[in-house]
């Protein structure tokens, strides 16, 4: 009898707890998922920057009363920069955490894997920082891109190289969807706009530490431009080693980074002398025009960290901002409604008005007009704000200089 009574009490308590937590959930916060690399071999630096932007957006959304009258919370998961980990993390967020939508992504190979999960569960996903065209070319309606894509960078890099009037270019790309995709796109576009320029690319291991053999090959017959397409830390290591062996930058060979490394907060901690005369694509430059929202984000980020916001902070912010505005427009968290809203909406982001291109291909559901410039460091430890813009001509603040 006693046993039966105890069992009944326990069941009653458990039922009450389930009921209570259910009620709490219904009235509780909107949970958005985010997958970023927080451990090696992923780019922890970029993951941390994206998180800073995402958190700022959530703070600003909640200050204005949240979303659909509910507070917004973000559950973060670690992808480690490894596709299978990213895939598992996305699945966990959807199945276990029951998130309504996801923002995030660093390393295209990880996004390739995560896009499959988002597609199969039909959960909207806004990509923060995966550049590979191949992700867009899948044509998944759940996948949206406020991040720049390889095609946009390829065009920017190739236009710049063409303007130099050079004869031979070698690209060194990491062995990922991002690296190989960008190198191929760059080569292809350069061939289209400047067929007289010889361009080849070499694929290097992202986890390697010593790139001497690849550099010695370049040393034999240095090209006019060496293009690096590698995430840190490998991106930093190869730039240092190119300088160390006297391959680039030199009076003959220009060094062009297409991975936007110059914007990362640890750039000068790792590059030092090799950074002088380096040219690089920048998706954010402090002299670049920002929207009012962008200025507010920049101010808050500076107050919180004492540092200038990098483009990944803005990208993280824009991704969740777009998602939030789409939920507002849809008036619900129902995936079809949110996806429809996201396809139609025009949102003022940090660096311009964001809207999605709906034409299939590398720009599918992509913010096309992501601003960029090519900058050049003319001093060691030069802050990005003081680095002159050398391309495109309409933004140019100084002429290109060589050692």
């Amino acid at each position, binding site marked *: 009898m006693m046993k039966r009574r105890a069992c009944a009490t326990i069941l009653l308590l458990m039922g009450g707890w389930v009921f209570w937590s259910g009620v709490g959930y219904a009235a509780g916060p909107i949970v958005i998922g985010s997958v970023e690399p*927080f451990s090696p071999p992923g780019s922890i630096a970029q993951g941390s920057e994206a998180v800073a932007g995402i958190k700022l957006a959530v703070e600003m959304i909640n200050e204005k009363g949240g979303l659909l009258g509910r507070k917004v919370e973000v559950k973060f998961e670690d992808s480690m920069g490894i596709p299978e980990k990213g895939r598992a993390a996305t699945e966990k967020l959807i199945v276990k955490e029951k998130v309504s939508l996801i923002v995030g992504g660093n390393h295209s190979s990880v996004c390739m894997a995560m896009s499959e999960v988002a597609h199969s569960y039909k959960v909207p996903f806004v990509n923060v920082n995966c550049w590979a065209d191949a992700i867009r070319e899948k044509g998944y309606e759940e996948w949206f891109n406020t991040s720049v894509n390889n095609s946009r960078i390829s065009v920017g890099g190739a236009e710049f190289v063409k303007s130099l009037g050079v004869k031979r270019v070698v690209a060194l790309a990491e062995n990922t969807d991002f690296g190989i995709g960008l190198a191929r796109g760059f080569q292809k576009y350069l061939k289209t706009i400047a067929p007289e320029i010889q361009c080849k690319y070499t694929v290097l291991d992202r986890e390697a530490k010593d790139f001497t053999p690849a550099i010695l090959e370049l*040393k034999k017959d240095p090209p006019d431009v060496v293009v690096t397409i590698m995430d840190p830390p490998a991106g930093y290591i190869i730039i240092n080693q190119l300088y160390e062996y006297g391959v680039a930058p030199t009076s003959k060979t220009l060094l062009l980074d297409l991975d936007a490394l110059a914007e990362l907060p640890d750039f000068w901690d790792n590059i030092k002398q090799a950074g002088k005369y380096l040219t690089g694509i920048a998706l954010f430059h402090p002299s670049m025009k920002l929207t009012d929202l962008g200025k507010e984000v920049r101010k808050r980020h500076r107050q919180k960290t004492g540092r200038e916001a990098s483009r990944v902070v803005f990208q993280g912010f824009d991704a969740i901002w777009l998602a939030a505005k789409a939920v507002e427009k849809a008036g619900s968290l129902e995936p079809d409604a949110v996806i429809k809203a996201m396809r139609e909406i025009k949102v003022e982001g940090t660096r311009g008005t964001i809207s999605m291109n709906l034409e299939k291909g590398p720009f599918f559901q992509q913010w096309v007009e992501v601003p960029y410039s090519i900058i050049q460091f003319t001093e060691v430890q030069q802050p990005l704000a003081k680095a002159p813009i050398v391309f495109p001509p309409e933004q140019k603040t100084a002429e290109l200089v060589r050692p």
Partner: protein
Amino acid sequence: MDVLITGIIMGTFYALLALGLSLIFGCLKVVNFAHGEFFMIGAYVYALIALKVGMNPFLVLIWVVAFGLIIGLIVERLLMRPLYQKYTEWGAMRDEYAIIVTFGLSLFLINLANQIFGPYPISGPGLMPMKERVLLGNILMMSSHRLIAFCVGAGVLIVAFVLVRYSPWGKIIQAVSQNRFGASIAGINSTKVSSIVFALSSALAGLAGALLCPIFSAEPFVGALPAVKSFVIVVLGGMGSVPGSILGAYLLGVLEQFGAVYISYTYRDTFGFVILILFLVFRPQGLFGEKAREV
């Protein structure tokens, strides 16, 4: 010629790492999976002291070695000794315990570094300013740091080799490596020898990490690849053989460079494994190892 020079330079750094691993295996009969993390600790200690304290990088190397010795002593005392102190015969020791302990230690140290030092790689200053480059006989340009780091590494390697091979202490280490039980009967304190060997190998790995820190940058995973290579080297040279591991390191360094330049860079890290497989098939005892069997 430039390929050969860079191969020899890389071989020296590999040798520093592999020598310690070989000594540990010879003396403790343990495969230390955390060896790469001692390399990582050395890189961090070097970068942080040089950058935060502003100390002369050559003096920092002494601190790195001291730190490596202390860490090695602590790890041996807390984690390794309980594995073998109950056994008078190595054959009675359970190898799998050592594998689990060192593998766990490796994961622990990587995650600890990630928590303490944060997400960003840190590059330490060169022994000479990195902007200063030297031209070797009109063949190869490199940073003066790399050249000096090579000289320091080669010097340490020679001293370590001579000490282990010819000094009375080295002979004691050799005795314990050959027969721990026999050495104990002869009055050698094999536990103390094991401590010293572990500390020495940790210091050598740390020194290699410090010397390469300005080139590779310190980050939690920096020791993983060099450690894998040092495992290959130890097998190539013959498990526990000091001259074997040094020769194996140079062989791998040069082979990798030639293979990458003249065959394909893409397969650079596989050349070592191809050689390893060939050795395992045709000369499983390695270059200087001896055929042995246990009864």
